[in-house]
């Protein structure tokens, strides 16, 4: 149980339904009240198991059909009627489909390789753009505890942020970037005069993987996956040091 008279507030807080002032007050209160903190944990435990238990009951298909039949005709969804086409036109469509399938079969094996390269090109382009004055970071900080929360609410994933200052690769900031049709995190590190951009996005099993190491337009790229995330570090730093950096991050 929450402490005296706080159960109602606690549920309101738990549901995100308190007004700003009371929300802040309660947040402060929980910091110093073990009972309320424990109670919040219990509420979360209950919510987690309710969510995991799959209790939502969906309308069976038979019921949908029954209701559609019982409703007056004007309320029912209209079936989609295909316009009639003359036979010759259908033949042309069929031929086009055949040709597309035939061409597709010949071209498709290359698509994976191409998209990998496109992503690498985008990453290099983004790295170059970030080197232009004022484009390097949205959040400038050498503190991982400042950089990581900055991404909260800006991305649909939480990129891991590590400072490698004591290894000679200090963190200098982070920014939002856009690669391969999605928002991703870019973390910026420094090695002496060289900047390293580390692009981070959630791993997609279907997506083609970038090669472990490659060179493009004079920049070195090292890619790896870790904990469900894909990483790609890009820099004008020499390949050996960049690989060393990647190993420090990837472990």
């Amino acid at each position, binding site marked *: *149980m929450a402490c005296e008279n706080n*159960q*109602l507030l*606690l*549920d*309101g807080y738990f*549901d995100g*339904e308190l007004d700003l002032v009371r929300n802040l007050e309660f947040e402060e209160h929980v910091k110093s009240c*073990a*009972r309320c903190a*424990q109670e919040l*944990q*219990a*509420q*979360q*435990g*209950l*919510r*987690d*198991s*309710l*969510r*995991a*238990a*799959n*209790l*939502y*009951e*969906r*309308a*069976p298909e038979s*019921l*949908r059909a*029954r*209701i559609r039949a*019982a*409703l*007056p005709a*004007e*309320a*029912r*969804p209209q079936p989609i009627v295909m316009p009639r086409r003359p036979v010759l036109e259908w033949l042309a469509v069929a031929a086009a489909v055949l040709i597309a399938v035939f061409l597709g079969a010949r071209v498709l094996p290359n698509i994976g390789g191409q998209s990998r390269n496109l992503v690498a090109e985008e990453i290099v382009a983004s790295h170059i753009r970030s080197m232009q004055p004022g484009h390097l970071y949205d959040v400038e900080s050498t503190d991982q505890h400042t950089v990581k929360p900055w991404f909260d609410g800006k991305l649909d994933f939480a990129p891991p942020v590590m400072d490698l200052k004591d290894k000679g690769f200090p963190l200098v900031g982070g920014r939002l970037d856009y690669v391969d049709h999605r928002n991703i995190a870019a973390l910026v590190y420094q090695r002496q005069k060289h900047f390293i951009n580390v692009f981070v996005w959630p791993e997609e099993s279907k997506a083609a993987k970038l090669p472990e190491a490659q060179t493009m337009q004079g920049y070195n790229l090292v890619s790896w996956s870790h904990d469900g995330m894909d990483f790609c570090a890009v820099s004008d730093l020499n390949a050996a040091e960049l690989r060393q950096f990647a190993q420090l991050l990837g472990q």
Partner: protein
Amino acid sequence: MGEEKRGPSSAGSFEQVVLPHMDAAYNLARWLVRNTHDAEDMVQEAYLRAFKFFGGYQGGDARAWVLKIVRNTCYSFFEKNRPAELAEEFDEKVHTASTTEEPGAEAALLKSADSRMLREALDELPVNFREVLVLRELEGMSYKEIAEVTGVPMGTVMSGLARGRTQLRERLLNARAKEEQRGLRK
């Protein structure tokens, strides 16, 4: 709700506005009447009512509008067929969890509650607590939306949720204790 004109065009057609919420309607009905047969009847009846009253729909939260009709349909059904359901002791006394328990012990127990236990515990709750919990935790509605569906003030929604959760937790812990006594759990 009142006039019997057909669907105001500004708010969209019945098909666009009401039919998409059939899952929500069925979920609420199923948790209120607690069996699939009656739940299907409730949804069908509610949908025919919704069609009849669609002229009075002013736009706005369509899901809440549909669920309100579903709920009213279910409560009419209770009045006619299961008056005991509504006469239930709404706020039965539950003993408060002991405070000597190890911190986090209850959270861990609740987290490990399985689907069958949760289903039974939720089914046993008085209907007024069951409905706010289903609307909040399964349907993901805000207090304001729940207030609209159930026709009570938001403060009542909040206290209903607080008491409902306390009772649900109590039942889960009791169920767990009973199972342990019976030695069903390893």
